């Protein structure tokens, strides 16, 4: 049985054994359930093999919600542990594992897929396309992300979770200081998911550049599409750095190379440097789409066109460029001199300028608007002041000399939660509520939605504002406990209370989905929010070909013009439509990737080699496969269109 010892969790506790049982039972229940209701065929035909951007988007969002609750459970445990001084709920090792997985899961497996999910559903519709440029590649992207996320998530019951922080700094993450396989999971699971993200980046750049509706030149694209285009540029140029850094890390940990060691010419700080060369642009990868979502929502519910379209675009381009020249501000205290810190201070502060331009543009859009307070709009309105607080504290952190005081304190933790939660979480919740009727054909309850909005917004501030204060008082981040004499106790207790409020808010969102699925009216129009961009011009539910006739566009708000000024969106007549075929290969290949990743984590070389061959076999299959897609006939389109029109 020695062989199986490696799979044991090195630092077990009753909670982990309980989760093992829970995971086992859940999986059994899922399998039994699917078999009992005879849904295997449906699942395979309609979801596992799909190449439809709308379905892939929905799967992305479901996974992201799942991961939100996983990361949220970690967060609650952290807040519970630090709620009172000298707490013994978790020991140091468990606390390390929990903050590490909280960070990785929330950034890479919650924020990223949520954003990518919304971009999958909305972007092709907004540019008037039938699907993304490479539908099969899109399925590969999703399944690679999904398998990467699942591989990362089994770490806490098989072999132990990574425990070196989401930044995984060396030498702490080296074999000497992180002996369990946890950091192998980190290197390999993120690598697999990262390949998926990189493919998404290429896919969407091509989609936006090549597949726009006739008449839609770049400066007539909706703002969300602009933000997605810029985001994907950042993905394509930033993710290769992560790929390389993780590959070097994998070699250091598995094959004994010395890239990030402190001997033989290695440099541990080189990891920090490479990590942040990717890591800072990554921040903008999750925040720029949020800016796009807010731009759509604010102009829809202020009932005005977006103020300063050109300056919005220019500031996003400026942000994307600046995002590549600021990374050293994450390690001002590393020991490089005043000259380097000075340069990176200035570039960092410069980012506040284009961001400020955008804030003022949103405010001017609201100015004299007829504001409708729907749930998406409430999130957008709350975003502006809260995000500004996060941004202002960011400028404080940008000052290198002052940063020596703030570095690695709870002040920093408060800052990035003040940026990422209103910036990304509020945005995806707003976008999710806003586009929900387009995805599913009914609206989420506004009443429950408003309850959850207030719970989340108020509790968010109760949770994270005290951290600014304890941070300035010297509470370090990632500290698993503290003594009573430090005086951090009461404010940390307040944080814990806020965290419970946040949990209630997120639970209400789930309840809202349940309630609305059961009781919400299905009798809604194709355009329930009275919105402005093309995704609302097609039917609800969206037919698989999106638009029976490709729309023609001549302004940034062609759909609005068609409603208000009689602009003719759909000219021409229905023709047969070329659509891609479904394929099981992306799913199968990603399953093999999962096996490969698992084998690599545990250094099981023979399985790893076989899996590698399997991956290449799948790629070879694709190279030699003759798949020219299929055509939907005119009769079939007209039948679908009539049915969808009649249902209104």
């Amino acid at each position, binding site marked *: 049985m020695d062989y199986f010892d490696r799979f044991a969790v090195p630092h077990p506790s009753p909670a982990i054994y309980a989760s093992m049982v829970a995971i086992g039972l859940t999986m059994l229940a899922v399998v039994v359930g699917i078999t009992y209701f005879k849904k295997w065929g449906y699942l395979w035909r309609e979801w596992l093999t799909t190449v439809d951007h709308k379905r892939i988007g929905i799967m992305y969002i479901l996974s992201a919600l799942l991961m939100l609750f996983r990361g949220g459970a970690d967060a609650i445990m952290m807040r519970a542990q630090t709620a009172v001084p000298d707490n013994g709920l978790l020991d140091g090792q468990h606390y390390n594992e929990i903050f590490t997985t909280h960070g990785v899961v929330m950034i890479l497996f919650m924020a990223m897929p949520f954003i990518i999910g919304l971009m999958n559903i909305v972007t092709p519709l907004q540019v008037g396309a039938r699907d993304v440029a490479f539908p099969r590649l899109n399925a590969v992207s999703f399944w690679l992300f999904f398998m990467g996320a699942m591989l990362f998530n089994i770490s806490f019951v098989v072999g132990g979770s990574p425990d070196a922080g989401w930044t995984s700094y060396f030498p702490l993450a080296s074999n000497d200081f992180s002996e369990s396989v946890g950091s192998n999971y980190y290197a390999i699971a993120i690598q697999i998911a990262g390949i998926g993200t990189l493919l998404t980046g290429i896919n969407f750049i091509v989609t936006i550049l090549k597949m726009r509706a006739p008449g839609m030149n770049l400066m007539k694209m909706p703002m969300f599409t602009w933000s997605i285009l810029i985001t994907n540029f950042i993905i394509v140029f930033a993710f290769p*750095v992560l790929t390389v850094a993780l590959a070097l890390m994998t070699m250091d940990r598995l094959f004994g190379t010395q890239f990030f060691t402190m001997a033989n010419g290695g440099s541990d700080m080189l990891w920090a440097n*490479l990590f942040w*060369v990717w890591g800072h642009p990554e921040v903008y990868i999750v925040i720029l789409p949020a800016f796009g979502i807010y731009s759509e929502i604010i102009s829809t519910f202020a009932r005005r066109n977006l103020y300063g379209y050109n300056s919005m675009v220019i500031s996003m381009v400026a942000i994307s460029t600046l995002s590549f*020249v600021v990374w*050293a501000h994450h390690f001002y205290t590393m*020991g490089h001199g005043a000259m*380097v810190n000075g*340069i990176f201070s200035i570039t960092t502060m410069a980012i506040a300028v284009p961001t400020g331009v955008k804030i003022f543009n949103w405010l001017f859009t609201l100015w004299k608007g007829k504001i409708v307070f729907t749930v998406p709009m409430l999130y957008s309105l709350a975003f502006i002041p809260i995000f500004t607080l996060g941004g202002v504290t960011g400028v404080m952190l940008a000052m290198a000399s002052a940063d020596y005081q703030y570095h690695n304190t709870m002040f920093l933790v408060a800052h990035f939660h003040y940026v990422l939660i209103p910036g990304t979480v509020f945005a995806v919740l707003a976008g999710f509520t806003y586009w929900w009727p387009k995805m599913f054909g009914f609206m989420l309850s506004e009443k429950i939605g408003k309850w959850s909005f207030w719970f989340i917004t108020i509790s968010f501030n109760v949770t994270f504002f005290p951290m600014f204060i304890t941070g300035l008082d010297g509470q370090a981040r990632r500290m698993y406990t503290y003594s009573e004499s430090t005086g951090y106790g009461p404010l940390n207790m307040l944080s814990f209370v806020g965290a419970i409020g946040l949990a209630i808010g997120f639970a209400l969102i789930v309840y809202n989905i349940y309630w609305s699925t059961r009781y919400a009216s299905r009798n809604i129009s194709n355009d329930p929010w009275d919105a402005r961009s093309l995704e609302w011009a097609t039917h609800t539910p969206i037919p698989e070909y999106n638009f029976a006739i490709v729309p023609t566009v001549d302004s940034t708000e062609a759909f609005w013009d068609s409603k208000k000024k009689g602009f003719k969106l759909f000219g021409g007549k229905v023709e047969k439509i070329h659509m891609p075929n479904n394929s099981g290969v992306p799913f199968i290949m990603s399953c093999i990737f999962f096996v490969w990743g698992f084998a690599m984590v545990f250094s099981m070389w023979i399985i790893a080699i076989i899996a590698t061959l399997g991956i290449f076999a799948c790629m070879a299959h694709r190279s030699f496969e003759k798949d020219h897609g299929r055509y939907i006939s005119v009769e079939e389109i007209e039948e679908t269109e009539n049915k969808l029109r009649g249902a209104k």
Partner: protein
Amino acid sequence: MKQLFPRGQVMGFAFSLILTLVALSVIVFDLSLKMAMIILLVTAFMQAALQLVMFMHAGESEDKASIYTNVYYGLFVALVTIFGTMLTMIWGYQ
């Protein structure tokens, strides 16, 4: 006959060979590390540009503008990453 002869391509091919030879000189002659790295960087970027324009036809399609924008953006990111890392890890390190 004159129109049929791919003069540009042949010149480009010859030039790319010359660039390779210049890069090769780094190991033939006993150069300082600094000099060697400068030669390699300069020839590498010239080589990449040559291949893109001459043999991958970057400038010959209707997407010319977006292709070049991409290339310049990529160039910017690459140079910033390389020289920024040099700055933080070596030149500016105390």
